[in-house]
Structures are given as structure tokens and as C-alpha cells.
């Protein structure tokens, strides 16, 4: 079998005595949508910080596209094609929608130490940014100020920015957080479409969305993966039912 795109081996992170990521291992294959679910406080956000390079791991290994990236910074990981979105929307409110995406294109196309030509007039950057916006259906909003978008549109822009980095693998940190029913339907359709071209690691609370989208699901509880498998396998996994789904149904 060929090497997975992302291979995580025995990843650990502790804050003081608290092991927040406790020996996590999993593989993500090319063009797979791999969801990571878990109850609140399971350590999902810490894990995505470790995968994206925002937070250094205590031990363990992360390999991406055949290369050990464990020690690399967030910037170096993005350049290799591993991009993330943020759970708390962190687009640049003061810039236009297209500039938010164009900046991500700029980061990978040529030096940014250019001081004279107006960046917003660079055709190539804008064209690629527009393509990313078109994929998330935001092209008609391109010239609005990003801060003026609705919450759902901001979530779409988050994804467009990750796309615009030219990433092979998208780490999506709760893209549905805070969205209403309609907004969430738009985003689920969008991810369904993205699956065709990108490998995705999806961290999400919304179970309906996860089971509709995921090829495989891993369940994180107190920093450990207690199960990995197809949605069907996970749904019927006794430990998962006990630790997580049962708890939800009971609640």
C-alpha cells in the first residue's frame, strides 16, 4: 500500500501533569475525508494546533507527503501544502474578500519583499484568489469588506483562504461552528464538493455532517483515539457508544 498523505505516530502533548494529547496515531490517505470527533475537552483543538504547527509536540511524529514535518513551523507546513482553517473565524476583517484570498496566493507565488507595485492590481494573484472564492461560492462578494460578511459567509471565506494557499490537505477546525441551519447546509455541500479534489481532516461537532461527509472517522476521548473506522463501524463501536454517542443520546 502506498504511503498515506498524513501519518501521525504516537503524538503527545502535556500541559503540566495533564496529558492533552496522549499517544495519538492515525493515517490520512490521499483524497480521503477523515473526521475527528470527540466530546468537549477531548483535545481536538490541541491536536489540530499540533498538526498545523501552531503548537510544538512533546514527542511523536508527523509525516506529510513522505516528509517528517514534526519540527517544522506553521509557516513551513503551509508552504508544503498543509493548511488549516480556524474554529474562531480569523479572517482579516479590514481587507476585501478577494484580498483575504489573494494574500494566501501571494504567500506562495514569488517574493513578498516587493515594495512598489500595488499588490491588489496583480492579475495573477487576483485570478487565483477568484478561483478559490468561486469554489466556495463567494465570488459575487469578492469586493466587499470581509468584516461585512455574514457569519456563514465568513466560514466560507475561511475555507477559501485555506484553498488559496494551494494546500493538498485541509485541516478544517469546526467549520460549522456557530452556523445556522441553512448556512450549515451550504457548507456541508461545499465540503462534499471539496472532497473530490482535496484531502481533508475535519474536526467537527455536528454528527449529522460528520456521518454524511466522512470516509473514515476517528474518535478522540481524553487525548486518546479510542476508535478509527468507517462511519458505520464507529457508530456501532461499543466503546464509542459508551464514551460519546451514548452520552449524547442520553443528553
Amino acid at each position, binding site marked *: 500500500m502506498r504511503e498515506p498523505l498524513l501519518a501521525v505516530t504516537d503524538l503527545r502533548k502535556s500541559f503540566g501533569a495533564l496529558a492533552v494529547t496522549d499517544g495519538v496515531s492515525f493515517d490520512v490517505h490521499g483524497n480521503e475525508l477523515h473526521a475527528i470527533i470527540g466530546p468537549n475537552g477531548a483535545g481536538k483543538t490541541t491536536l489540530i494546533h499540533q498538526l*498545523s504547527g*501552531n503548537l510544538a509536540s512533546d514527542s511523536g511524529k508527523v509525516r506529510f507527503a513522505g516528509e517528517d514535518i514534526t519540527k517544522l*513551523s*506553521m*509557516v513551513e507546513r*503551509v*508552504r508544503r501544502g498543509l*493548511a*488549516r482553517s*480556524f474554529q474562531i*473565524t*480569523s*479572517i*482579516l*476583517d*479590514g*481587507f*476585501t474578500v478577494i*484580498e483575504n484570498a489573494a*494574500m*494566501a496566493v*501571494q*504567500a*506562495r507565488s514569488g*517574493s*513578498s*519583499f*516587493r*515594495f*512598489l*507595485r*500595488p*499588490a*491588489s492590481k*496583480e492579475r495573477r494573484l487576483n485570478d487565483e484568489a477568484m478561483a478559490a472564492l468561486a469554489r466556495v461560492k463567494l465570488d459575487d462578494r469578492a*469586493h*466587499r*469588506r470581509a*468584516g*461585512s*460578511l*455574514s*457569519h456563514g459567509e*465568513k466560514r466560507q471565506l475561511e475555507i477559501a*483562504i485555506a484553498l*488559496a*494557499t494551494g494546500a493538498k490537505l485541509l485541516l478544517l477546525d469546526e467549520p460549522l461552528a456557530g452556523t445556522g441551519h441553512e448556512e450549515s447546509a451550504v457548507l456541508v455541500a461545499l465540503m462534499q464538493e471539496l472532497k473530490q479534489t482535496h484531502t481533508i481532516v475535519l474536526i467537527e461537532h455536528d454528527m449529522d455532517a460528520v456521518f454524511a461527509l466522512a470516509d473514515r472517522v476517528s474518535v478522540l476521548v481524553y487525548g486518546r483515539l479510542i476508535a478509527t473506522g468507517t462511519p458505520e463501524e464507529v457508530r456501532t463501536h461499543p466503546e464509542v457508544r459508551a464514551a460519546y454517542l451514548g452520552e449524547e443520546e442520553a443528553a
Partner: protein
Amino acid sequence: MSAGSDVAVSGAVPDVAPRRGGMLAGRGSALAAALIFSALAVLPPIALAIGDPFLVVMATRIVVFAIAALSLDLVLGYGAMVSFGHAAFVGLGAYAVAILASHGIDDVLVQALAAILLCSLFALVTGAISLRTKGVYFIMITLAFGQMAYFFMVSLSAYGGDDGLTLSARSTLFGLPVLAGDISLFYASLAVLVLAFLGLRALTLSRFGRVLRGTRENPIRMQAIGFQPFAFQLTAYVIAGALAGLAGVLLANQAEFVSPAYMSWQRSGELIVMVVLGGMGTLVGPIGGAIAFLLLEDWLAHFSEHWKLGLGVLLVLLVLFTRGGIAGGVERLFGRARP
């Protein structure tokens, strides 16, 4: 970071709004700058006509400090780095003139080149160390480095030490005393100001400037798309230092005297006040701020030798009684220029 997620959809401005606009923010800024520059350009003939040549001297000082404030705005307004040591660069630039002149090197181009190199180097070293930290550390460290430069000049007795150094004459260009007249010095300074304004305008809109502005808004986001903020912030710090050094070259010529007082931390504080009063993150703001500040200083000084008291009270009241600080208050008073 700015929590602007609830901005009203309907009233959105389609362009890039500055984080904190002042009285001269927005797209009217180019027009405002053109008006200021034209008014300054016609000032000398008017001053001569009404028989008040001192106006030109005053205007030269204003233009010089406008250049310095403009350079600080790149760091403070566009880079979101609260640097409290900016006057050191102005002083180093001024000393480059005085020290070279005392060794017989009068040419303004050589002096300006030396000032730019010296200030760039100082900014590169101190900036690289300061930018390893954030927040209150950054403020204290830039202040301390500024003070280090100040004490260095105070103890450099070979070049006047605490007393400063008087220039025997203004700088020359290829041996010609082109800056000897107050009016020619004024126009030379104004030319530098206009060029600096146009240069920084291009810079802030360029690829580099866009990354700098993005970092101001959200450094983590910028890292997540592949930019390392440090290199951009340091570059901005060096460019600003070099430009402030150029202001120092002009200041030395204007006063025909240099002294460590140019680099005192009070001077740095005054530069910050100019930038914030005028509107940081807008290029025309610091120019307006420098004009307002120096005129205010001049005006207050007529009333009392204790004019600094008035300035202090004004600062405290402005911060306390305007929500969101001075810039926010000024913005509410004058309204942000909208297209």
C-alpha cells in the same frame, strides 16, 4: 484582534479601512495631502510678501518633523509596533551630518547616505532584538535602546557631549551651498516629504505593505497562510529608521546645531503624539499631526513657560474622555472620510 464580526452589512465600506482612522483618514487622504503640500509650497512667497521670514523657518521644522512622524507611522500605524525610541534615529541622522562636517565632509549626499546606513544598521540590530518580544516588553526595550543612543552621544565628548555641536555651515551639494538659504532648505525638505509620502504610499499598497497590514490585523492568520511576520516587521522597522535618519539630516541643517536632546525619549513620545493625533495608519495623518502639534506647541508657549503642562492635560483628557483613545475620539469628532 478586532472583534468586528458584527459589523453591519449594509453600511460596509468596500475599500480597505484603516484600523484607526483619524481626521484625515480614508480615500480623501490623497486629496488632503495634495492640499497640504500645495499650501506649503506657496508659503515662502507669502511669508516674504507679508514680511515674516520666520514663517519659513517654522515651516521647515514642521516639514522635518512631518517626515519623522511619517516614518514612525510605518512602524506604529502600519506595523502595529509601539516603538518608543524613534527619536534616536532622527538624532543619529543629525549627528551623521555634524560629525562628518566636523571632519570636512560637507556634501549632503554623502551625509545622507551615511545617515541612512547608520540608522538602518541601528534599526536592524535593535529591531531584531526588540521584535523577539511583544507588548509591554517591546515598548520598554525600544525606549531603552533609544536611551542608549542618547547616552552614547551625551558621553561622546569629542563631539560636544551634552552641549551638542554647532555646524559651521549648512551642507553643500557638489561643493555648492545650495541649502544655505532658508527658502531653498525649505523646498528641499518639502521635496523629501513629498517623495517620502509617495514612496510610503506605494509601499503600503505593495505586496510587502499588504503583508504588513495583514500582520497588524491578525499575525496568527498570516502565519497560517505562510508569512513569517518577523521579517516583514523588521524590514518596516529598518525602512522607518532610515527615513527618520533622513529627517535628522534636514533637522541638523535647519538648526545648524545638533545635540543629544534630539534623541531624548520625550522627543520619541512627541512623535507618537503627532502620529496618533493626526491618525495613525493613514499617511496624511502624521503630516497633519506634525503640523498641529508644532503649531500647538508654539501657541501654548506664548501663554506660559509651563506649556508642557497644558499638553499633558490635553493628552490625559483626550485618552480618558474619548472611548477608544485619541484616534477614536478624533474620528468621532471629525468623522471618517468615506468615499
